[in-house]
């Protein structure tokens, strides 16, 4: 069976800009069943050839998994005709991963904190909170349908 994922990896030639070594793009259908494979692909290409710590690998895996789940379920509402784009830029000191869906977007400032005592027993609402705790920087575009996460290599 062929994979429904479209992967594109561009490595900058030696004469190119040394600060940006590699770009990794993956387009994924709006299907939660594809999330694990996408996380695996993105993590593999983002950390290939580097001495990544287990902690960095874990932070990257969970952050990408959370952002993909939000994009598929909340952004694209699991509509079969829509897809999610993952664009990773790899620098010597950091990894930047942007994940964009085709939804109408949301206001990230309106998402409640899930660790207030009355929220702890809730069964959902921890995704964005975990992303913010696991990565070094989080930015959204104005529409709120694209998240950009930066993880420093340390």
């Amino acid at each position, binding site marked *: 069976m062929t994979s429904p994922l479209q992967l594109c990896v561009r490595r900058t030639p030696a004469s190119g800009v040394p600060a940006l070594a590699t770009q990794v793009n993956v387009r994924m259908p709006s299907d*939660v*069943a594809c*999330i*694990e494979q996408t996380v695996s692909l993105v993590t593999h290409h983002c950390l290939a050839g580097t001495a990544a710590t*287990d*902690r960095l690998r*874990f932070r990257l*895996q*969970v952050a990408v*998994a*959370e952002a993909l*789940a939000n994009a598929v*379920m909340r952004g694209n509402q699991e509509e079969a005709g829509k897809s999610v784009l993952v664009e990773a830029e790899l620098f010597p000191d950091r990894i930047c991963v942007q994940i964009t869906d085709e939804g109408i977007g949301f206001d990230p400032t309106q998402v409640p904190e*899930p*660790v207030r005592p009355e929220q*702890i*027993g*809730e*069964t*959902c*609402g*921890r*995704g964005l*909170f*975990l992303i913010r*705790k696991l990565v070094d920087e989080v930015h959204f575009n104005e529409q709120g349908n694209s998240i950009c996460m930066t993880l420093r290599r340390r």
Partner: protein
Amino acid sequence: MGFHQTKDGGGVLVVRVDGQLIVGNRQELKDLIGGALDRGERKFLIDFARTGYIDSSGLGALVSLSKRVRELGGELRLSGLNEDLRSLFELTKLDTLFAIADTPEQALANF
């Protein structure tokens, strides 16, 4: 990848999570535990010694299962969380909601 279940001598259903516990397979775990509850099982241990990562949907599934088990007079415990996995429970304060043991043996010792 998947869920491996065994029955402990003390009547505890031990479910080992091989791979990830995420949005794509959380329902499978809920169905597995739900089916066992329907059969009368009341003691559950979920072991994460072979788990790579858990997402917020997986955490939510554990919260939901824990509530359901408690409502039926049972108990659900967790074990085998490495430092990274344990940090997810600590960040979300879910470590206050679950009985978490280092190993399955420790969890089963006084179940």
